């Protein structure tokens, strides 16, 4: 009981810190967006960007640092929630997924700004529009994450106060279910992005970025899997799951194997009979990875949830 109260205190402190950082980050995000808009207009008007950049580069660096600290704090909060609450939550899984992608995009923003400045110095202005588009989309992702954190913090605080006596859970099921929600989110995002890239991007661009994109999208799933492994490390391998979970895993694995063999057969057929199926030569592995993850995670969720119609 004492351990549980300590955990509640820790969650409270973590939530308060994250919320404070979230509000500061929100101001930082507005500042960033305004700066990017001014920067773009300055470049389009052929004006000297150094006049704009010199004045605010220090603030920009501070915003990046605050953003980074906020993301780490928020991810820590979500992990604490995953550990504390016995019920799984789609919102929490979604927030975790967005948090990891948003964290990576902080570095992405930095790289994009660096590219923009290089292209500006080199006098190349044609490619800048694409980079600004990604930069704006990235700010949209950061904004989504900030909103999710605010909503999640409010819900968590309410739940902690409401449910003073949360039941103790010995054999955890929430990480197991949440990990599969994240698996579905990663795979759907990955497949969606592969379809978009196949339609709108030239082959050379896909070839250049496919490994980084695949890793970036898989990272939330890898992170939750590493967390799960860390939690289970102290248990014996035979106790990692209970027997119902083992049965669900076996059924999901069999389904995944059958469906992935069919998918690979289709890919093979395309490559065999249509020698021009060059896009498949580049994306076949990410396609297989996201597809099999989707089948595996959704099968487990279906099997776990199908007879869980009601609460006690």
């Amino acid at each position, binding site marked *: 009981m004492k351990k549980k109260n300590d955990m509640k205190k820790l969650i409270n402190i973590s939530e308060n810190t994250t919320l404070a950082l979230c509000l500061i980050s929100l101001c930082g995000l507005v500042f960033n967006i305004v700066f990017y808009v001014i920067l773009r207009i300055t470049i389009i008007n052929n004006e000297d960007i150094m006049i704009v950049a010199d004045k605010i580069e220090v603030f920009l660096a501070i915003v990046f640092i605050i953003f980074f600290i906020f993301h780490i704090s928020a991810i820590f909060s979500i992990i604490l929630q995953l550990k504390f609450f016995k019920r799984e939550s789609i919102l929490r899984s979604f927030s975790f997924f967005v948090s990891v992608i948003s964290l990576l995009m902080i570095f992405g923003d930095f790289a994009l700004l660096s590219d923009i400045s290089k292209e500006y110095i080199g006098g190349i202005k044609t490619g800048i529009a694409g980079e600004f588009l990604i930069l704006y989309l990235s700010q949209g992702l950061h904004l989504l994450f900030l909103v999710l954190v605010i909503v999640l913090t409010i819900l968590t605080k309410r739940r902690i106060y409401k449910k003073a006596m949360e039941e103790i859970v010995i*054999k955890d099921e929430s990480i197991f279910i949440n990990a599969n929600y994240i698996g579905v989110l990663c795979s759907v995002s990955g497949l969606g992005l592969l379809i978009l890239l196949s339609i709108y991007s030239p082959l050379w661009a896909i070839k250049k970025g496919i490994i980084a994109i695949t890793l970036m999208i898989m990272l939330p799933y890898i992170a939750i899997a590493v967390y799960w492994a860390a939690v289970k490390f102290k248990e014996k391998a035979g106790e990692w799951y209970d*027997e119902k979970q083992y049965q669900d895993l076996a059924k999901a694995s069999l389904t995944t194997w059958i469906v992935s063999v069919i998918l690979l057969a289709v890919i093979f057929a395309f490559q065999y009979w249509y020698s021009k199926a060059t896009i498949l030569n580049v994306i076949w592995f990410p396609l297989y990875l996201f597809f099999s993850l989707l089948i595996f995670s959704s099968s487990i969720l279906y099997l776990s949830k199908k007879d*869980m119609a009601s609460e006690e």
Partner: protein
Amino acid sequence: MLKNNLRRCRFEHNEISQQELANIIGVTRLTIHSIEKGKFNPSVLLALKIADFFDKKVEDIFYIDNK
């Protein structure tokens, strides 16, 4: 088809919750829920653990319904 009186046993045992029973037996709440609903057949070991906890014979809790 394997049926069970698990719900009644829990009721008679001070209305112990699915989560409490799951903690004692060492499984997840979902597993207890699935057994109770007849959607999952427990192993002999798990059935024995459940029977042992309620201080009953396995066949007092689990039975075959031929209908």
